[in-house]
């Protein structure tokens, strides 16, 4: 059943847009206005995908379309004390968005580079942003991406100049606070030639209420740039999360990502990485879900040119009647010789009613390539359980520890120690009965 989005939602987007554009000289932001107008037009045409669409066959998003979520106009006045538990130590910069709205009082930037709110940066860095914003995340065919683009206003902008290597990570915190709110987080990272940085995107909530997050992240890596990206989706357990990240990796650049999905009633994350000649990526993921959750991860690693290298380890731990979906597409285009790609999908079912659908998908149009992939779905290994029991652990404790360890293998790959330890502690609590 397809369903066009409700008209009021679209009108709302235009209202918010006017607020931004009204304050600036009209001519300076013509491109921005046009971009959003195009997206609004697409929103009017596109329909919400149904399970009849191949890409969405396991993920029924009709509950999202049926509820009416309204964007927030302002932040709810949180203070640093309110968000103390959500901060990470030793970051170069922190941007906080509350229900999608930029919260300057909670943000700071000691990085020496541009880490700013889109609504501000779009004026000061217009040409750089214009060249990349919405150039990677297509909104012609995706209603969610079109909606996000139609609502373009606040968002994270990270501009890393050529040759600059940030030691400490940039932390972008998207905090949900209100029931029935819709937020459209946007992030644009532009990495100059030979630059390096680590970006953490963390989606969290202050309370267990239902809301919608519809996020889009775009990254443009110039030659030899090296970006590490950690994405942690720990929304409220009754929330909806649709996220998309599109990365363009220029010659000899490197994109390394770890994404964790443990929150939301229904979540969908799409990662799309395009690799130019000699570019590398790792795209690791962990879905740790229980109860009635659904976590869907769709990734596409597109080897568009020769000598690219990609590595992917995706794991799902599924309990209760939860359902995890992984679709991992690896594309090797004509002429992308000497591509070296390996993908592994490892899945652990903790209950008889849990479900996993995993689909590695290789599309290879070059003949001199190395592409490995494998998928396993199973339960805990009996020999491993026995080993731990022979050391005195009860059967339950042994199972819990092994379940934790299964997930920890992905968490261990997070390059930020504080976040890694925090997530390991969460996973430990989650897996221990």
């Amino acid at each position: 059943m397809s369903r066009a989005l409700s008209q009021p939602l679209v009108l709302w987007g235009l209202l918010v847009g006017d607020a931004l554009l009204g304050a600036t000289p009209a001519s300076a932001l013509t491109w921005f206005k046009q971009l959003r107008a195009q997206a609004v037009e697409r929103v009017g045409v596109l329909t919400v995908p149904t399970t009849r669409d191949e890409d969405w066959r396991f993920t029924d998003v009709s509950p999202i379309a049926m509820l009416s979520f309204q964007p927030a106009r302002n932040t709810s006045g949180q203070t640093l004390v309110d968000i103390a538990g959500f901060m990470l130590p030793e970051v170069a910069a922190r941007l906080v968005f509350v229900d999608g709205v930029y919260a300057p009082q909670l943000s700071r930037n000691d990085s020496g580079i541009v880490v700013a709110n889109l609504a501000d940066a779009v004026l000061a860095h217009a040409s750089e942003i214009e060249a990349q914003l919405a150039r990677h995340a297509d909104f012609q065919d995706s209603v969610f991406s079109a909606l996000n683009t139609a609502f373009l206003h606040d968002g994270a902008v990270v501009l890393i100049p050529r040759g600059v290597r940030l030691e400490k990570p940039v932390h972008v915190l998207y905090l949900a606070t209100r029931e029935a709110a819709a937020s459209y987080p946007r992030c644009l990272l532009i990495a100059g030639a030979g630059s390096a940085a680590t970006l953490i995107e963390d989606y969290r909530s202050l309370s267990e209420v239902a809301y919608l997050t519809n996020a889009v992240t775009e990254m443009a890596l110039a030659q030899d740039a090296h970006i590490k990206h950690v994405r942690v989706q720990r929304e409220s357990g009754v929330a909806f999360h649709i996220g998309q990240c599109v990365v363009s990796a220029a010659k000899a650049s490197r994109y390394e990502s770890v994404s964790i999905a443990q929150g939301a009633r229904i979540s969908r994350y799409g990662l799309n990485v395009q690799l130019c000649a000699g570019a590398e990526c790792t795209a690791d993921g962990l879905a740790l879900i229980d109860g009635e959750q659904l976590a869907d991860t769709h990734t596409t690693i597109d080897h568009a040119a020769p000598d690219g290298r990609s590595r992917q380890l995706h794991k799902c731990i599924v309990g209760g009647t939860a359902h995890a979906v992984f679709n991992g597409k690896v594309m090797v285009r004509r002429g992308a010789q000497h591509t070296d790609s390996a993908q592994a999908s490892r899945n652990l079912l903790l209950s008889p009613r849990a479900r996993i659908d995993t689909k590695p998908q290789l599309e290879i149009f070059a003949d001199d390539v190395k592409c490995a992939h494998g998928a396993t779905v199973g339960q805990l290994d009996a020999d491993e359980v026995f080993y731990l029991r022979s050391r005195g652990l009860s059967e339950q404790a042994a199972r819990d520890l092994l379940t934790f360890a299964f997930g920890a293998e992905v968490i261990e790959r997070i390059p930020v120690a504080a976040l890694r330890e925090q997530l390991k502690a969460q996973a430990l609590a989650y897996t221990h009965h």
Partner: protein
Amino acid sequence: MIVNDSKTLLAVRGLRANVNGIEILKGMELTVKAGEVHAIMGPNGSGKSTFAKVLAGHPAYEVTGGSVEFGGADLMTLAPEARARAGLFLGFQYPIEIPGVANSQFLRLAYNTVLTQRGQEELDPLEFDDFVREKMKLLEMNPDFLSRSVTEGFSGGEKKRNEILQMALLDPRLAILDETDSGLDIDALRVVAGGVNQLSRPDNAVVLVTHYQRLLNYIVPDYVHVMDAGRIVKTGGKELALELETRGYEWESHPVATSPAPASA
């Protein structure tokens, strides 16, 4: 060492066990008393490792007959963890890897679980750290073992040393070491054997399951048993191992001399 009138720790009588419906153990007999070191040797497929796993309670093996008493209790009625807590330790031929779990964390968990069972106080991380470092010195282990994930990226020798470290921490009454010598170079073998020797006391016992004689150059057994087709077919002193080494297991299939009385008499 053989001590007169010492307590019987383990008494195995007519033990039979199946895996996947195939009988592997066909009437095992073994008695181990406190203070003793036993070696069980035998060709591949003779049932040595199965015997070790059955004693520790591996759920894949079905016990179909016989009895095993451990410290006076019926071992076969206990869950694997209860056997461990009662003081039985199995050193694995292939210790598992637990990525993401620091070795120190795992060792402390195992240690505290067993200690609590024995009515002793748990150690907090700091106390445990002191305690474990002392034991590690004994095994010439690098302190970085503690921060690394359990056996992940460990070499074969490191994995086995880690097994012996666990044994040192859990302080079992009976340790069964399953092919602990396999895959070890001479240095690692010496260290592992040295650890076992240091841990041997008059009130505990060790059963070494091994294919080769060379481990017995470093740990001198009081008894050597030869297993074949699921039973012990010959028992002797340490010289039996040397004989096996020079003449091979084939020799055993054609016995010329009468079998000596089992040590378990």
